[in-house]
């Protein structure tokens, strides 16, 4: 989408209500059940939640939509409390429930849109799956799921809430961009190791195309995917044609670099691949995507909050590929629709690894 293109009509009406997970409320200083964006200004929150809010704000700004937050939508379901809310929200028709997967709180009578923001956090993804198992009905009334692709079967019927695609034009600031040489040498007793970053003014080598691979906790937990990434890293280290940049995961939204490196190194060391003990700049860990750098390709795992990156980021890449165990083909379809461009699915090979053993029930 070019920057100067007129924004397409919004799916939302003239006013939207937004709710955050209840676990965030103690961190906010709010004047009442309804509050504005100002209450979130100085709150430290994970990058995915911040990006989700930025997406909604961008949509609201572009379409002159009034955005208001509601602290606990679950208390305004009926009767006098509901009348109180209705009086204050006027003709608002849409409610966006930002969910961490532990619950989904809809407001009856409004169009409820779900935004599951902690994609890539295994605990939160498991919580969402559990919620789907326990109360699938919560999802059946949704007007849409924002940047999500959940589907589920309840009884004999399959359900897949309509998809709504919201995209950031520009990638928001994700902190200082630092680059570190790839190294999987054993960590120190504290689980960390001193690795010096590249000096800030050192440009990336321009002689090779860049292969950009964001990592998340979910991606790191996918052994087959990580083995594939490991092979690409090894190829790069031993003179392959691409420079591999691995964006470090953010465990529980944390921004502390040593912890992010430790999480990645620990995962790579757990998959049975042997890496050279020396540091290599042919593959690098990065804290955030480098700005204005052409990318040869981006490889995305389904457990990456892909919508945290702006369209400017994807526009820099010649090729976009996805790979991962499980629902990778569904993710390819979601990402392709979201980006409005072709996305290639890479099959995870099992060559070189012991064949899976399946046991029958009976001896």
């Amino acid at each position, binding site marked *: 989408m070019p920057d100067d293109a007129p924004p397409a009509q919004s799916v939302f009406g003239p006013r939207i209500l937004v709710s955050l997970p209840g676990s965030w409320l*103690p961190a906010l200083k709010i004047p*009442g*059940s309804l509050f504005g964006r100002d209450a979130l200004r100085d709150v430290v929150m994970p990058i995915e939640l911040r990006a989700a809010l930025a997406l909604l704000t961008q949509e609201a700004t572009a379409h002159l939509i009034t955005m208001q937050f509601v602290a606990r939508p679950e208390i305004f379901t009926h009767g006098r409390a509901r009348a109180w809310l209705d009086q204050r929200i006027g003709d608002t028709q849409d409610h966006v429930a930002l969910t961490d997967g532990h*619950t989904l709180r809809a407001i009856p009578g409004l169009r409820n849109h779900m935004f599951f923001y902690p994609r890539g956090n295994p605990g939160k993804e498991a919580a969402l799956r559990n919620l789907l198992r*326990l109360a699938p009905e919560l999802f059946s009334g949704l007007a849409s799921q924002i940047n999500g692709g959940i589907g589920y079967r309840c009884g004999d019927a399959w359900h897949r809430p309509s998809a709504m695609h919201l995209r950031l034009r520009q990638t928001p600031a994700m902190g200082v961009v630092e680059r570190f040489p790839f190294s999987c040498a054993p960590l120190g007793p504290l689980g960390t190791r001193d690795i010096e970053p590249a000096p800030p003014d050192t440009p990336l080598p321009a002689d090779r195309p860049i292969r950009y691979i964001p990592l998340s906790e979910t991606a790191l937990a996918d052994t087959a995917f990580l083995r594939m990434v490991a092979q690409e890293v090894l190829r790069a280290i031993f003179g392959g044609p691409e420079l591999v940049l691995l964006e470090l995961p953010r465990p529980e939204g944390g921004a502390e670099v040593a912890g992010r490196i430790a999480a990645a190194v620990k995962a790579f060391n757990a998959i049975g691949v042997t890496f050279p003990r020396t540091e290599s700049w042919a593959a690098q860990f990065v804290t955030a995507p480098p700005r204005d750098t052409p990318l040869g390709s981006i490889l995305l795992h389904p457990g990456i909050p892909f919508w945290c990156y702006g369209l400017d980021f994807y526009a820099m890449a010649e090729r976009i590929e996805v790979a991962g165990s499980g629902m990778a083909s569904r993710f390819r379809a979601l990402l392709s629709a979201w980006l409005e461009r072709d996305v290639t699915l890479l099959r995870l090979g099992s060559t070189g690894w012991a064949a899976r053993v399946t046991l029958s029930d009976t001896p």
Partner: protein
Amino acid sequence: MTETTPKPRLTLDITPLLEDEWTGISVFTRRLAQALERSGRVELDYGIRMTRIAAPEVRETIRHGSGSFLRGRINGRPSDAFEPIDSSLPLLYPSVKENFGLARREASTIHDISTLVMPETHDQANVAYHLEPLRDQITSDEVVFCVSEATRAALSDTFPWVAPKTRLLMQYADWPEHFPLLDRNQPTVELGRYAVVIGTIEPRKNLDLLLRALEHPSVIASDLTFIVIGRRGWLADQALARLRPQAQQKVKFTGFVSEFVKYRLLKAAEFLILTSVYEGFGIPAVEAMSLGKPVLASLTSSFPEVIGDGGVFFDPFSVDEFAAGLKEISDPRRIAELAPLALQQAASFTPDRMAAPVLEWIGA
């Protein structure tokens, strides 16, 4: 000689009565058992999961007011003395149904769905205890009793297919008959003008709002103090430490108190404050109103229907609205207006009202 029609029979699961200290669900179970017995229109059987419990044992347990008596009786019983419940009788669970299909006709009770809509305010074990069986519970129930219209609406909004089989099962307040006499024989409560606040410092009870409001100019200027019935945990200590000494002095925590002390404190109070952000019913409101005390309550979930015109409401996240409500309800003229309305509202919750939907279910 006239032939009498046999009364319909019902098994009431009394597992909650095994608790040592009866609060919440245990008291609800006790009231339900007493309301049904009092109706005279049902022959009650009792059960603990699959085991039948004799009615005299249950009555004795209720007289003791603790589950330790019943546990002692059960534990001392030889294994061949256990008798299963009669599966041909309708079976009513006053709370979570952990087993399904013990009887041909089953009903259970939903108190609230806070574990589903605000799981962050519960520990994980409690969430799992309520949610794991929930769908099977309401699917296998012939009737799903809900303790308030708020709970019924919340459950039906979540599971629309369950709506047709939901019924209201609202409890009542029942102070022991001897409390008024005991109270008259005690010295007067001399705590000045005060409001009672019921609740611990757990997040769902939203006591933090009260503590923040203590620094509001109109609250500081008021001559009221606040007596919090409930434990004072480290969260309360933290919140209190942030307050100026003048504000700290306006609030006192009683810790755990007996029912009689609670009765006395409420009776001598100006009004009751409930700051909770979510409740299935809110029995403390009915208890206070039954003593003629109006309630200052959060405008949330079941409070509006339970308190009705017997109180004043505020946005549970607004210190300003709370302070305004407090100012209104502190005015002696307003209290005088609200007190009879509170009494009238409390009187609408009766044993007969509680028993009626159950009796209707079993055709009594």
